[in-house]
C-alpha cells in the first residue's frame, strides 16, 4: 500500500510552467544560479531533475554545473521530502543540553537516519545548526513551529502526532 503510493507520487510529472516565471525574473541577473534553485525549491519542495534540465536549457549553464552547485549547498534537496519536516537543532547549546538523544530517539522511532524521509513520505528528519533559540535548548522546528526545552519523550510524542 505504502509502496504503491510512493510509486504513484514518483511517477507524477513535474509541471514546469511556474519555473518559467522564475527564469524570466532572473534573466539578466549575474550569478543567479543559487536564487533560481532556491525559487525552484520553493515551488516543488525540492529540486527535481526535470527542473535542472529545464534551467540548463534556458540559462545556458551546463547540467553538470547546476548539479555542482545544487549538491554543494546543504539547503538543496534533490529528492522529494516528507509532508512534515522535523529539524532538530544540534547547535552547540542544544548539543550540550542533549540534542543527540533527540536525534537517536527519532531515528529509532521512524526507522530512518537523520537526513532521510520515511518511505511513506510522512516525515523528514534533519539536523540543523543553531537557530538562535539557544535559550530554549534543546529545540527543534516542526513544520515551521519552534518547540523548545525538549526531552526524547516529548519529541517522540510530537512526531507521532503528525498525521
Amino acid at each position, binding site marked *: 500500500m505504502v509502496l504503491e503510493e510512493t510509486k504513484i507520487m514518483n511517477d507524477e510529472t513535474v509541471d514546469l510552467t511556474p519555473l518559467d516565471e522564475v527564469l524570466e525574473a532572473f534573466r539578466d541577473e*549575474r550569478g543567479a544560479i543559487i536564487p533560481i534553485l*532556491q525559487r525552484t525549491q520553493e515551488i516543488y519542495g525540492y529540486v527535481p531533475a526535470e527542473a535542472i534540465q529545464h534551467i540548463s536549457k534556458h540559462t545556458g549553464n551546463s547540467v553538470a554545473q547546476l548539479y555542482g*552547485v545544487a549538491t*554543494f*549547498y*546543504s539547503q538543496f534537496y534533490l529528492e522529494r521530502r516528507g509532508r512534515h519536516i522535523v529539524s532538530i537543532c544540534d547547535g552547540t547549546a542544544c548539543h*550540550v543540553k542533549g540534542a543527540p538523544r533527540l536525534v537517536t530517539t527519532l531515528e529509532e522511532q521512524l526507522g530512518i537516519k537523520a537526513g532521510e524521509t520515511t518511505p511513506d513520505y510522512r516525515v523528514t528528519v534533519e539536523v540543523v*545548526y543553531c537557530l538562535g533559540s539557544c535559550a*530554549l535548548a534543546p*529545540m527543534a522546528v516542526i513544520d515551521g513551529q519552534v518547540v523548545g526545552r525538549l526531552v526524547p519523550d516529548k519529541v517522540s510524542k510530537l512526531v507521532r502526532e503528525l498525521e
Partner: protein
Amino acid sequence: MSEPIYRANVLVCTGTGCDSSGAGSVIDALRGEVERRELQGEVRVIETGCRGFCAMGPIVIVYPEGLFYCQVQTTDVEELVEETLVKGRILQRLVFEVPHSQQAVPFYDEIPFYEKQQRITLRNCGVIDPESIDEYIARGGYEALGKVLSEMSSEDVIEEVKASGLRGRGGAGFLTGLKWEFTARAPGDVKYVVCNADEGDPGAFMDRSILEGDPHSVIEGMAICGYSVGSSEGYVYCRAEYPLAIKRLRLAIEQAEEYGLLGDDIFGSGFGFHLKIKEGAGAFVCGEETALIASIEGKRGEPRPRPPFPAVSGLWGKPTNNNNVKSYANVPQIIRNGAEWFAAIGTPRSPGTAIFALTGKVENTGLIEVPMGITLREIIYDIGGGIPDGKEFKAVQTGGPLGGCLPASGLDLQVDFDSLRQAGAVMGSGGMIVVDEETCMVEFSKYFLTFASAESCGKCVPCRVGGRRMLEILTRITEGEGTPEDIDQIKEIAKGMDSDSLCALGQLTPGPIMSALRYFEDEFHAHINEDRCPAKQCVNMISYYVSPETCVGCGMCKRECPVQVIDGERRMIHIINQDGCIKCNTCFEVCPFDAIVKLSGGEIEVPEEPIPVGSFGK
C-alpha cells in the same frame, strides 16, 4: 510629526528567542486588550528586536518607567494591562527574580544581567521598532552618513576608522580601517562592498539579532564604507536560515531608498550607493570571504588561495571590501561620536565591545555585549548568573567549531582578541558555551570536529582528509577503542592541517581538540587507558544500576524504560539487565528517589534478581 504622544510604550521583544517562546501571540493579545479598553490613543505596543535576555522570554518592557516583565504569556496580558497600564502598579508576579537570592528586580536597568553590559553595537536592538526608519533616525541614525558626505573626504573617513582602532568582528580581528584603505587604494573604477552575514558558528546569533533588530545600522555602515573605498554597489550575504533578518533588511533597504539614503546621488553629494541581498544556501565554508564571493557569483562556495586578497581582486574580479555585520554596525557611531570615543572603550589593542551568545550551562542565557577587557568570570558569574543546579564549572568554549576551550584556571583571563588567542581559544564570531562537569571534553571536541569536517568543501587535501582521519580517531576513543598512540597521531594531523590547508577552515579545525588536549588531556587518557569517561557521557563506557539500598520498588523506571530491560514488581528492588540496556538515561531521569546510579569504570553490587525492598545484604 503628527504622531500622537503616547502615555506609555509597551515594548515587546520579537527576537528569535522570545518569538519562539510565544512573543507573537502576546503582542496580539496586548493589542487586543489595549483596544478593548480603548487605550489605543494613549498606549502603544511596539515590536522590537532582541533584548538579549532570551532565557527569560517573552520579554515586555513598559516605558516610561522601564518596567521589565519576563516570561509573559497571553494569559498574563489582561492583568498586565489592568495593573500596569490602567492602575499604574507593578505586577509582581512577572518581575524578574535573581537566581539563588530570589531578589525581585522590577526595573530593566537594575537587572544584574544588564549591569555589566555596555550596549553599543546593540544600542538600538530591543529599543526601536526595526521596521521603522524614523525611529532609527530619531536615535541619530544616518547622521554619520550625512556628516561623511557633507564634511569628510574619503581619506578622512578611513583615517577616522583607523584611529578608532576598530578590529573586524568576523573572527580574525583585522583592522577595519586598514582593510578599507587597501580597497580604496586598489586600482579599478568598479569596486564592491560586501557584508558577511553568513554567521555559520552553530551557537551564535548576534549578526542575526542586529539585522533583525537594527538593520539600518548595517546599511549606514556599508554606505559609509562605499563612500570611503569608492564603491557604489554593495551586497549583504545572509544565510537563508534567517528569513526574518532578510525580510527586515529588505524592508530597511526599501525605506532607505525612499528617503534618498540609498540610491543615486545621496544628499545631493554626487555619491550613489545601491544595496542588494544575496541569500546563502547552507554551507559553513561560505563564511570564508573568498568562498562567500564565489557564492555571490553563483558558484560552488569554495575558497581560493589568497593573495590576491579581495581588496585587490574580489567579486567579479574587482576590488572588494568584506566586513562582518558587527564591524559595519559600529561604524556610524564611530563617525558620529569620534574615533577617540570608541578607542576609549575596551582595551587599547582591542577597543570597543564584544558580543557573545552566552549559552550552555549558565543561569542567564542570551545575547550580551560587554566592553573588551572584561574577564570570563565576570561574564559567566555576574552576567550569566553562574552554573545552574549546583553543578561545577568545567570549561568555556569560544569561537565555535574553529575555536577552543578554556578551563577554570582561565576564568580570570581578559576577553580580547589577543589574550584569548594566546590561551588557545579565540574571539571568533561570538559563540560562548559554558559546560559543566556533565560534558565529556572528548565528545565535545568530537562534536565540533564532526561539524567542521562535514563542512570541509573538499577542495584541499589536508582539510578534507585530515578532518576525516581525526574524526575517526576521536570516534574510536569515545567508543572505548582508543590506543595510546592516538594522541600523538591527532597532534601530528593537526600540525599538518594547520600549516597546509588552503583556508582558515582547515587550519582551525583542529582548534577545539588541541585546546581540549591542552587542558583536559587526562580525560583523553581515562578513555584510552582506563575505559572510563569521567563525565559519564560516552555510552560505551557507562552502565546504569539500581541502587539496592535506595530503591523503594515504585516501578517508575520499569514503566518508562523504552527497551523494557528492567525487572521487578512493586516493593521489589529493581534490576537493570545490562545486556539489553541502551543507556538512554531515561531511568536516571525519571527515578523520583535518585536510586539510579550511573557508573563509568567499576560496578556496584546488586542482587541477582529482584528481592523485596529492605532485604538486600541481610
